């Protein structure tokens, strides 16, 4: 009640009796003394709540302000010049840099981790012929492309810039990218994959490259860049014009909707119905109803007969959790019914046991596969629990093992070829040094000997397929025999051609 007079005065807008201009020092001092300055309350708020709201003020705590950042003012930082080695480098270059003395001297160079090598893909001759053959590209040029991509770490502009395959046709950047990515995709897709399908697809997705789309994109960009000043101006003008038109239309539509609503009330319906200009308002409702009825009939009428005509019960794919649970309970597996087979009744697959359908390896390499899997503790001919998933799993395992055995076989084959060529090189070098002084009779005999031996080689290869140990023995035996027959020019010629044909097979 202390300030009641002042309050009344302010409510009634009666000017304060005290002269405004004159300083009212004593009064102010009084109030200041009466009202203790509250912490954390602005002056204006303080003035408003006055002394009467002291209780309220208690609730105000001092706001917690953010701590001022310590801008290194607290103390001096010691910097040291230290020698370091970059683990990302292959050479042992030692450089020096300034580091804070507080950093751990044993920690490695922090930027070394950014020196990552992108995985580079390589392929064997066999993979090339099976998956990667392309009319536009030879294997040599593809090899060159991959080597240059590796060299420049998939920095395509540099690759394109320095791409220079002798005797090759001119390649655009997109050609190069297209070839590289398509090869990578094919390799990932065709090689056995250790992880799950999702990660495989992700990897394939990362190698996605659409050449046509890329070309179109660049064409668009180019045309965008090549506009003349006038074209740009015109385009902008058109853009503004179209915006203006759109806005006009919106405005017009809004106005008409408002009008409709005021005239027809709730019946006028939705604001997004646009009637043609000049349509009398009275019939809009009818027109609408007609339209509705018509569309409803349209929706209903056409599809029904065709659905009814299907005689066999159509199994709908179970997508709901309930259906899945039902199927799991009753051991039901649904597949998309083949569209063609409904007519041919004969092609019914009789009931079978899952274990009947276990995948069988190719007869030629079956022993090797059995051996390889036995080493891993897996029997390929039987499963403890031949469920559907396990059969699929076993098939994947067999595929991978088949690929492995095939690769091993190829390695042996190439090794054999290398051995043959080594022999030939040694032979030629030897001949070059010694000079040919051998009697021609011996030469003929040797030639016959060698051809016989080559004739026998395929058997040796078959033997190689039996086991790794025997392979080595076959090869070493062959080597010794061949080194016995180091002799003449003619022999080597026959061997090399034969080796060539053999490789093709």
């Amino acid at each position, binding site marked *: 009640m202390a300030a009641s007079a002042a309050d009344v005065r302010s409510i009634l807008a009666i000017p304060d009796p005290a002269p405004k201009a004159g300083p009212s020092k004593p009064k102010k001092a009084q109030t200041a003394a009466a009202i203790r300055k509250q912490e954390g309350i602005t002056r204006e708020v303080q003035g408003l709540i006055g002394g009467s709201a002291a209780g309220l003020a208690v609730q105000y705590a001092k706001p917690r302000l953010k701590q001022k950042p310590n801008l290194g003012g607290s103390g001096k930082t010691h910097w040291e010049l230290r020698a370091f080695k970059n683990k990302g480098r292959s050479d042992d270059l030692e450089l020096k840099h300034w580091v804070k003395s507080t950093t751990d001297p044993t920690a490695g160079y922090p930027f070394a981790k950014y020196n990552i090598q992108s995985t580079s893909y390589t392929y064997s001759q066999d993979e090339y012929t099976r998956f990667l053959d392309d009319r536009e590209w030879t294997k040599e040029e593809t090899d060159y492309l991959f080597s240059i991509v590796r060299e420049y770490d998939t920095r395509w502009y540099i690759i394109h810039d320095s791409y220079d395959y002798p005797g090759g046709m001119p390649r655009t950047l997109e050609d190069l990218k297209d070839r590289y990515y398509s090869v990578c995709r094919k390799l990932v897709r065709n090689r056995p994959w250790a992880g799950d399908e999702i990660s495989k697809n992700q990897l394939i997705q990362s190698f996605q490259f659409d050449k046509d789309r890329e070309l179109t994109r660049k064409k668009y960009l180019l045309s965008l860049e090549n506009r003349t000043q006038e074209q740009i101006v015109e385009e902008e003008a058109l853009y503004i014009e179209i915006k203006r038109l759109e806005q006009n239309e919106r405005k017009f539509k809004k106005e008409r909707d408002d009008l409709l609503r005021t005239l027809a009330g709730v019946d006028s319906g939705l604001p997004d119905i646009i009637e043609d200009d000049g349509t009398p308002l009275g019939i809009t409702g009818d027109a609408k109803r007609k339209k509705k009825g018509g569309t409803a009939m349209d929706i209903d009428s056409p599809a029904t007969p065709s659905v009814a005509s299907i005689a066999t019960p159509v199994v709908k794919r179970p997508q709901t959790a309930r259906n899945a649970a039902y199927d799991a309970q009753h051991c039901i597996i649904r597949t998309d019914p083949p569209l063609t087979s409904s007519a041919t009744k004969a092609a019914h697959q009789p009931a*079978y046991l899952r274990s009947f359908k276990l995948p069988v390896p190719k007869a030629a390499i079956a022993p090797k596969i059995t051996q390889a899997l036995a080493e891993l503790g897996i029997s390929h001919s039987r499963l403890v629990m031949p469920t559907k998933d396990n059969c699929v799993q076993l098939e994947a395992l067999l595929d991978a093992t088949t690929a492995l055995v095939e690769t091993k076989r190829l390695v042996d084959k190439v090794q054999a070829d290398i051995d043959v060529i080594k022999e030939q090189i040694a032979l030629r070098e030897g001949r070059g040094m010694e000079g040919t002084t051998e009697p021609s009779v011996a030469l003929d005999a040797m030639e016959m000997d060698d051809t016989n031996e080559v004739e026998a080689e395929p058997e040796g290869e078959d033997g190689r397929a039996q086991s790794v140990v025997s392979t080595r023995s076959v090869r070493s035996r062959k080597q010794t025999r061949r080194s016995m027959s180091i002799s003449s020019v003619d022999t080597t010629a026959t061997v090399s051609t034969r080796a060539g044909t053999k490789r093709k097979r």
Partner: protein
Amino acid sequence: MASGDRVRVRGLSIFRPIIYGNTATVLTQKERETLPSPDHTHRWTVAVRSAASAPDSEQVGGADDLSYFVKRVTFKLHDTYTNPTRNIDKPPFEVSETGWGEFEIQIRIAFISESGEKPMLLYHHLKLHPWTASGDPEIPPLDVAIKQGPVHSWQYDEIVFNDPYQNFLNLLTSHPPTPLPKIKKRPVPFHLAHPASLEASKGGVPEFNVSMEKEEAERMEEARKKVIAEQDKWRAKLIEKEKELEKMKKVLEQLS
């Protein structure tokens, strides 16, 4: 029967988990004396049953009665037995006999006529002697074998019906199989494809469970990863060798 019942439900296959195999126990001297043929050393039971075991039962599998889709199971025993072909038309589909030797038993499962399916042939090697980790048939003396308790040899499998007739499907779905227990409660049945399970198979009547399937899948997954790692190694080797070969060829060309 409505004609709609004899329509095949396309794009659907339904399977029933079964087990087949045998359990064998060594006969005591007393028992042997009572037998007509005293040279028989074992009593065995060969059977086709549902995969899940009934709770607290003393046999492997057989929680469900399979006669709702199996009409007859024929066990063809060794020719030395009297009436070697035993037809079993009602559950339990099993034959108990005594004998002294292991042999191959031919099992023929005939389905009810509603299925429209032909009978199915499978084979089981009668197992009398205890399992060994190596799989080698080493026959311990009878007094040792008798202490090891009954021998179990069971194979899990699934009979798959493709595009079943509607009425057959209805019949099957009205008898959902008892699901296998999720976790191992009893010993697992030993299987030659997984010799490491020998220890886990000891100590009572075994039971099939779901985790066995998962474990097997993991085993194969492990093996596949190893194979692929190996394959990557060999591929790298192959590519290296091919490069070497190319080089050699060039050297050779220069020489000639």
